[in-house]
């Protein structure tokens, strides 16, 4: 390879990097420029409870609350189940079966979200409605359970990789100390894999905060705070489902549209700050490197 082609290769790499960076900055800039009108004209009233565009009442608090609750609930269901399943596939299951389990899980992770949404609206919400004898099964809780099913395959396969990547020597040393298998897993393997598992949880959080289609179909789309606030068996609204339902109805450039963009930027800020916090507090690095 000549020096000329090597230079070109370098150019390719550099320009690809610049393009991806520019894309992110562009998205942030577009969101900010478009939401500027909302920040100026509505101001602090954005963080109120009442939403009614014809009266120029733009309170996004109930949607923000819905997003946070749905994400929190779905993670608190999916993370324990996912991590323990990963412990099973990586540590207990004989390795010749692991590949089958893993590839079928990866298949599940690739199912488009609209499919989950349709199953959710046709069967799942009806079951939840009957189970809790509700008027309607389209609730915050339904959306959270559906989301946790959606993010479960991702959590399992990534955690499985994380646990599988812990070098043998740690297991052997722990066994050599005479620990039982569950002690090896709890006190040696999981702490070592902790950083990677945190990364997985962050990824799942991003997906569950950003999921639109499936949530939109099962959550009921009422812009109200649950009464009382911990009653999750009532219809609600998330930022993404609100955007999905209303963004096309608002005229481009109107105040309504601008508030929608503002909701988008709030979502981005939440994800960015959570990523930042997680990276800051879990940056111990991999112990085995």
């Amino acid at each position: 390879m000549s020096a000329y082609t090597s230079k070109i290769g370098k150019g390719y790499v550099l320009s690809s990097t610049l393009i991806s960076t520019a894309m992110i900055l562009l998205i942030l800039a577009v969101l900010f420029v478009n939401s500027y009108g909302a920040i100026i004209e509505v101001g602090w009233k954005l963080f109120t409870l009442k939403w009614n565009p014809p009266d120029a009442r733009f309170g996004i608090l109930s949607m923000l609350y819905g997003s946070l609750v749905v994400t929190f609930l779905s993670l608190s269901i999916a993370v324990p189940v996912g991590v323990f399943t990963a412990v099973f596939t990586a540590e207990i299951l004989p390795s010749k079966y692991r590949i089958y389990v893993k590839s079928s899980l990866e298949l599940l992770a690739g199912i488009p979200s609209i499919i989950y949404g349709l199953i959710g609206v046709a069967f799942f919400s009806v079951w939840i409605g009957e189970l809790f004898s509700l008027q309607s099964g389209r609730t915050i809780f339904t959306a959270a359970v559906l989301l946790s099913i959606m993010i479960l395959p991702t959590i399992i396969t990534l955690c499985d990789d994380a646990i599988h990547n812990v070098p043998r020597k740690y297991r052997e040393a722990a066994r050599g100390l005479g620990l039982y298998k569950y002690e090896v897993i709890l006190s040696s393997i999981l702490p070592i894999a902790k950083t990677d598992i945190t990364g997985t949880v962050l990824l799942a959080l991003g997906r569950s905060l950003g999921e639109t289609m499936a949530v939109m179909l099962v959550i009921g789309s009422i812009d109200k705070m649950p009464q009382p606030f911990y009653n999750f068996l009532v219809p609600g609204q998330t930022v993404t489902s609100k955007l999905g339902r209303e963004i096309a109805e608002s005229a481009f450039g109107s105040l309504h549209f601008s508030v929608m963009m503002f909701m988008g930027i709030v979502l981005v800020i939440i994800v960015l700050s959570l990523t930042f916090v997680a990276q800051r507090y879990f940056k111990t690095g991999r112990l085995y490197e």
Partner: protein
Amino acid sequence: MKKLIIMCIFTLTFFLPCSNGFSDILRTWNMKTMFKPGSNCGYVFLLLFVAIISCTSHKKEIIMVSGSTTVLPVVSKAAEQFRLRHPDVNIVVNAGGSGVGINLLGGKKIQIAMVSRNVSQKEIEKYTDVLFVRHPIGRDAVVPVISSEIYNAGVKALTMAQIARIYKGEIRNWKEVSGPDREILAVDKEKARGTRHVFMEKVLGDKEAEAPGAGLVVGSNNEEQTAIAQSDAAIGMLSNAWINDDVKGLSIMLSDGDVIEPTLENIINDKFPITRDLLLITNGEPQGKVKEFINFIKSPEGQKIVEQSGYVSIHK
């Protein structure tokens, strides 16, 4: 064709020398090196391929249609038949709701908006450079609908005032309107939906009225139908054509005691209180193929589709 040649020359002169496979060929005069691993000649040919495809694809005239899910069944069937006769035209029909249709037409992204209500003053003011021209293609009624369980339990007709009080949240149980002792699930629609505009204008007096009694908000007619069929105590609003065995249409009791059933005759003779025109809206008078398509829907053949879809023809 000229465009194609220019694109090919452009791709070859700028990208082929950049690929290290090409410089290997120059050095060794061996064509095999071109497809060696590590050679990026493949990308150049991919680019060439894309360039050729993008230039040779045959250009059809595309008519974009979008909007109300009430009008959608008529237009999509009509588009199918129209395409058979005019193979050079492609008609893309999308849903989204009347409000979405008007916004897209206002933004000049589509040629025809399907709308199941009138264009509001606000919308006309918002898009000053767009001249909304209405083309009625049929008539329809918005019918208050309830779950079959409640209908069979004896609630067959309500007055407008009762429906209004349900949506305001003042009546919360079916027994208050002589039904069974069950809580009412009032199903509302997204604010820009045409069906909601027409319904709320007649029931609550304001097309964008808030409905504090609503327990669920849905979008399209399909979604509304599913939500009401799944519940055993729901009330909602649907276009007349979407009523079926699980979703029963309520009769409306007038102030003089007359009970008007949601039948086609009552829509034709304008007795049913909540009727509307189904519209296609264009920006200015339509030209060319757009005009032909709209005329096709207005023709006897197109009106047959309107009637098959459960609506009333404009000729009646």
